[in-house]
């Protein structure tokens, strides 16, 4: 008989083989055992430049490359470790103070252990990703040491040892090994390898084992700049030690996860994203699949520690607690102005008297008024599935800073007032309160426990003085999550090595010319705003012998320079879009490409992607084709120049003739579009909000749009639509398209109702055509602005357009409501939008120019790209608007003005007005680079909280009123804002 059993000692690998056993439960509740092999080895290097032993056995990649050793041979020292030190943080240290590790001034030469990395990944994926990002940075010198795979540092879990204890032991063991290992080198000043921890138990055990270890806080105290750095350690860990006294709970407890899950499954509870009303910080709403209208969440108790954007689970309240949406404007600063950050724990109840009164009044009101507005279902938050906390920008509330702290170094709690009104005040503990006053600062939220009224966070970084350009701009960029750092070297390495000297190869045999059409002979020109540098598009038109016209739109061939999946492409896909602020442009692609090599500048040859139509004289498409090409633009016009040239009858050259043809055709195209029901939202403000879907900007000084604006716009729309059809034909699953959903009918109910009651006008909204027509009819001859007002309000009822992957929607859903087109995409601005770049690649594959790169073909990946660029696009718009608002606000400083305004919304204690263009107000903001992200003519809505019971009856919706606008800085909170006062209801 032979036995299958093998004896362990005959196996040469036995000592180096271990296995990990996990037990996990599967989705259907079964328990499953997982066994994984672990191969232990001795050739994992320590990666210290001091070490000569490890370099000999350093691993090589398949290509034979050895990765260079990371840890410096002369690491920085501190008082405690004068000979220099390598840091080994444990998991808690990273969890609590990742911001510290990202500092540029300290924390170099850090060894991240595999044990720690694995634990961190289980605890927090975002932190894990940040850490991985750190290990890739060259300056920081972070090294990941795979201690679990090295024979000497591998630790077996002992009987009765918890997994955490085992991991802590593994960390200590690895630190010990590092010290022993480096001790063998011949160098005189061997750096100490120090464990950084926050866990008291772990530190004590390290002391027993004589492993160098230090508390994170003690270590940071020994650094220069300690005060600033100390503030960045998360708040949570402090409390564990210091405050285990009786905890008084202010908020109801959350349900357990399993309870929430079963509740959601059975339909008793509902899950959704929590949104805070912009007018009232105590009112939130949540859209859940089970109800057509959002559920209301009123009051602190019911909101129960959720922050705008969190994914929460709610329970619907009994019907007798249903209410109308608030009719009141409630701002947090006004109500909680005098709260003291330090006294937080003493507060007996979560809802202060004032807050209660504010809410109470409202309840009374709703009960009296049941005929007019039906009460809506309300709900309370019972748990949070996922926090959506990010870093917040704000400023310290000066009233919460004590006098002593302004000079001293005492640690105290202060409130931070976030820029975003929807975010509650954040309590932070700091020793540098005095210095932080009057600064824009960046903080994160660490936690929000039941015993705290406000969330607790910590200081990350100061951006600079309040109301200085640099600080406010950076604050804006951070708040809207715009990537504004300079392009890293890896990205710049992807640029052509010739730099600005790059030229289209003269020889047509060059590979760059492969399958390109030579269109250099065509009379092509570009029309853009004055001073435009990144010229995306150029046009031409010429008559054909058969009486038709050949029209071409030529788009910068960005995909020639940005190859899929390289560093530059990855960066661009993250940025998603170029962001235009008043005084700054944050590019999606490096300058060299955007303003030079890709830009279709006049008089030079450039690569382009051309769409060529044959159009009949009535602007019907006879034929369309797409080709990569080489063009030479004859002239770069501004809109005005182009208009002048067209109007100048003495100009009879072919180029001008071509432009006149284009203009003639564009008018016909526009008419067709209007007939099909495209919405014309004539006011520029609305145009931006609606996003006119063209690449042409509205010049800031143009009061009326010139014909040439719409000329460019029409052909860009035509190109986008033609391309959308083509790529959808070729790739019905993966084509990247853009849709604009029809707005739900209920959105218009209120507006239509009000129009009817107040003005006797009818708003029809069954189709985009009907809406367009009835909007035209909504005019008041005595008040030209009335029409614009209605359009603005109608626009607010609409959905926003979005990018999507063709396979995710059915064909009827592709429709672009605003443009009344069945299918649409973005193709014409690849320099500033990533979606266009993807469309370029897909089109290139569709015409068999090049094979489609897998990254552009994988649907999952494309969906992720769409999701990202939708967010980025929205953020870019918001950032642009906020930037204009800031500049106009600055120009208003210290002035008082009286203005006509229109009432947009009425609350019981105030109303919202729209002040038409503040154009003549003060100096213009400096000329912006290009493409105003938001209108110059600012829409200002401000509140009017003055007690005006007497006047209230006199004010009604759409009414024109006269208001006095003053710029006021609230001395208590240091917040600047425009205050409005009603002067008189204007005639």
């Amino acid at each position, binding site marked *: *008989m*032979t036995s*299958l059993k*093998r004896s362990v000692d005959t*196996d040469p*690998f036995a000592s180096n*083989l271990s296995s*990990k056993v*996990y037990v*996990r439960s*599967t989705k259907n509740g079964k328990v*499953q*055992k*997982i*066994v*994984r*092999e*672990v*191969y*232990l*080895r001795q050739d*994992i290097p320590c990666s210290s430049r001091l070490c000569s032993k490890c370099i000999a056995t350093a*691993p*090589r*990649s*398949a*290509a034979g490359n050895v*990765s260079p050793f990371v840890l410096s041979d002369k690491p920085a020292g501190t008082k405690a470790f004068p000979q220099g030190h390598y840091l080994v943080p444990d998991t808690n240290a990273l969890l609590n103070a990742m911001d510290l590790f990202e500092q540029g001034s300290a924390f170099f030469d850090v060894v991240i252990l*595999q044990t720690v*990395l*694995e634990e961190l*990944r*289980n605890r927090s994926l975002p932190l894990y990703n940040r850490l*991985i990002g750190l*290990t890739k940075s060259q300056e920081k010198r972070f090294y*990941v*040491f*795979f201690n*679990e*795979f090295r024979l000497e540092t591998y630790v077996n879990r002992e009987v009765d040892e918890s997994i955490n204890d085992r991991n802590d032991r593994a960390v200590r063991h690895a630190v010990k090994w590092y010290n022993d290992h480096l001790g063998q080198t011949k160098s005189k000043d061997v750096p100490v390898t120090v464990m950084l921890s926050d866990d008291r138990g772990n530190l004590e055990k390290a002391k027993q084992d004589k492993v160098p270890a230090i508390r994170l806080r003690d270590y940071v105290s020994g650094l220069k700049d300690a005060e600033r750095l100390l503030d960045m350690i998360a708040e949570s860990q402090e409390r564990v030690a210091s405050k285990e006294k009786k905890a008084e709970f202010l908020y109801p407890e959350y349900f357990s996860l399993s309870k929430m899950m079963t509740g959601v499954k059975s339909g008793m509870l509902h899950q959704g994203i929590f949104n805070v009303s912009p007018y009232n910080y105590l009112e939130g709403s949540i859209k859940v699949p089970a109800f057509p209208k959002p559920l209301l969440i009123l009051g602190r108790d019911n909101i129960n520690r959720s922050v705008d954007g969190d994914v929460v689970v709610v329970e619907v309240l009994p019907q007798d607690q249903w209410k109308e949406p608030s009719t009141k404007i409630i701002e947090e600063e006004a109500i909680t102005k005098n709260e003291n950050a330090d006294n937080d724990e003493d507060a007996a109840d979560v809802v202060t008297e004032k807050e209660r009164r504010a809410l109470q009044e409202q309840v009374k009101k709703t009960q009296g008024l049941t005929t007019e507005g039906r009460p809506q279902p309300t709900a309370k938050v019972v748990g949070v599935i996922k926090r959506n906390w990010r870093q917040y920008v704000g400023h310290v509330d000066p009233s919460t800073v004590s006098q002593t702290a302004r000079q001293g170094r005492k640690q105290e709690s202060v409130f931070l007032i976030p820029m975003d009104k929807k975010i509650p005040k954040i309590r932070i503990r700091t020793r540098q309160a005095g210095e932080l006053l009057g600064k824009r600062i960046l903080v994160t939220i660490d936690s929000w426990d039941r015993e705290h009224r406000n969330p607790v966070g910590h200081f990350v970084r100061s951006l600079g003085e309040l109301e200085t350009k640099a600080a406010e701009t950076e604050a804006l960029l951070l708040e809207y999550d715009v990537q504004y750092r300079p392009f890293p070297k890896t990205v710049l390495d992807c640029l052509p090595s010739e730099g600005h000297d790059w030229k289209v190869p003269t020889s047509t045999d060059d590979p760059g010319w492969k399958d390109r059409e030579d269109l250099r002979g065509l009379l092509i020109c570009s029309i853009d705003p004055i001073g435009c540098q990144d010229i995306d598009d150029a046009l031409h038109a010429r008559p054909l012998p058969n009486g038709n016209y050949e029209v071409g739109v030529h788009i910068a061939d960005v995909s020639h320079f940005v190859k*899929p*999946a390289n560093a530059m492409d990855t960066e661009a896909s993250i940025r998603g879009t170029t962001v235009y602020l008043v005084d700054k442009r944050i590019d999606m692609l490096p300058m060299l490409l955007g303003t030079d090599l890709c830009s279709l500048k006049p008089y030079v040859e450039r690569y382009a992607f051309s769409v060529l139509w044959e159009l009949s004289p009535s602007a019907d498409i006879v034929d369309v084709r797409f080709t990569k090409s080489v063009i030479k633009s004859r002239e770069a016009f501004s809109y005005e120049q182009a208009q002048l040239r067209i109007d100048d009858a003495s100009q009879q050259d072919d180029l001008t003739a071509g432009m006149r043809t284009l203009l003639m055709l564009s008018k016909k195209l526009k008419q067709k579009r209007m007939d099909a029901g495209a919405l014309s939202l004539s006011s520029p403000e609305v145009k931006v909000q609606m996003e006119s879907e063209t690449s042409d900007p509205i010049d800031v000084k143009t009061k009326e749009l010139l014909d040439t604006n719409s000329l460019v716009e029409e052909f860009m729309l035509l190109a986008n639509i033609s391309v959308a059809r083509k790529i959808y034909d070729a790739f019905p699953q993966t084509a990247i398209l853009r849709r604009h959903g029809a707005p739900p009918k209920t959105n218009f109910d209120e507006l239509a109702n009000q129009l009817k009651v107040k003005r006797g006008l009818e708003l029809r909204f069954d189709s985009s055509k009907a809406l367009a027509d009835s909007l035209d009819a909504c005019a008041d001859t005595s008040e030209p602005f009335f029409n614009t007002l209605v359009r603005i309000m109608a626009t607010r009822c609409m959905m926003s357009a979005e990018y999507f992957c063709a396979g995710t929607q059915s064909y009827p859903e592709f429709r672009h409501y605003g443009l009344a087109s069945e299918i649409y995409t973005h193709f014409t601005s690849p320099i500033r939008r990533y979606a266009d770049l993807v469309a370029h690649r897909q089109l290139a594959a569709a015409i068999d120019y090049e094979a489609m*790169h*897998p*990254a552009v*073909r*994988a649907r*999952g*990946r494309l969906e992720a790209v769409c999701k990202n660029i939708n967010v980025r696009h929205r953020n870019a718009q918001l950032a642009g608007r906020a930037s204009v608002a800031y500049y106009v606000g600055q120009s208003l400083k210290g002035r008082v003005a009286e203005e006509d305004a229109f009432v947009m919304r009425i609350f019981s204690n105030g109303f919202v007005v729209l002040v038409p263009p503040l154009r003549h107000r003060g100096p213009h903001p400096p000329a912006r680079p290009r493409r105003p992200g938001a209108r110059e003519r600012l829409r200002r809505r401000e509140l009017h909280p003055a007690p005006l019971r007497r006047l209230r009856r006199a004010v009604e919706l759409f009414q024109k009123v006269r208001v006095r606008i003053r710029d006021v800085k609230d001395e208590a909170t240091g917040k600047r804002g425009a205050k409005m006062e009603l002067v008189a209801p204007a005639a």
Partner: protein
Amino acid sequence: MPLDTSTYDLALLRVDGRRWNELRRLHAQIRTQAAADGSSYLEMGNTKVMCVITGPSEDAGKRRGLAASAATAPGGSSAADVAVSIVVGGVQFCGSEEEGQGRQLQPPSVGARSSFRLFKVERIQELQATIAKALAANLHVHLYPRSTIGISLHVLSQDGSLLAALINAATLALVDAGVPMTDYLVACTAGSTSTHSAGDEGADPLVDLNTQEEQELPFLTLGTLGATDKVAVLVCETRVQVSRLEGMMASAADACKGVRNFLDQVVREKGHKMVTEGAVEKGASMAMDIDI
């Protein structure tokens, strides 16, 4: 849970601590079932398979109906059929289609997450056909006219590279059964360190993947003839860039050589043991090659 395959770049270490070109621990035995004509047991890491050979026996006509996936070598019925059946978790996938149609069977797995992936009957049939065809071309089946070589493979536990392990085990068992063959038919998997859509040009090839790697990365199974680079089996079911394919195939071929040396060593040790224990007469032709 441990890290995933994306951390390879950090220190050129795979999820289980191996380098890119290292095989898992191999362990094999032959003649494990004294009653069978040939038998073997093989472990590649946690993938454990057993093989039992019946035949060659001269009753091809009658038995053919039972054979699950049979491959006939060129030459028609004058050569032996190779019939392969694979058993996963005690359920035999052979012949009777109505029994197994559309059913999914779970292997008795210790491999990471592998038991989530269920074994479809069609999948097993595909494996059977692949193995049968490859072996029929390698074995000297023309020496056994009108016979059948029955190969029964048992998957005891699965942790990646299953097809490769099955082929290697079958080869060993056929050596034990004394069926003449051109050379060892050995197989190994190879993958690439980044996913298809990542489009990373600097990706390293990997050999001998475990389940986790198979689930996260593109991979192929390559079978070669002994020490040569002659490819007998090539199965690739994931998407991978053409540019990476060459590197993957080259490293798989190298790994196959390693597997071949290992199998050869197992055979020689067993032979040596049989000679010393007197199971084979001294001077019998079989002993000639041993100890050379």
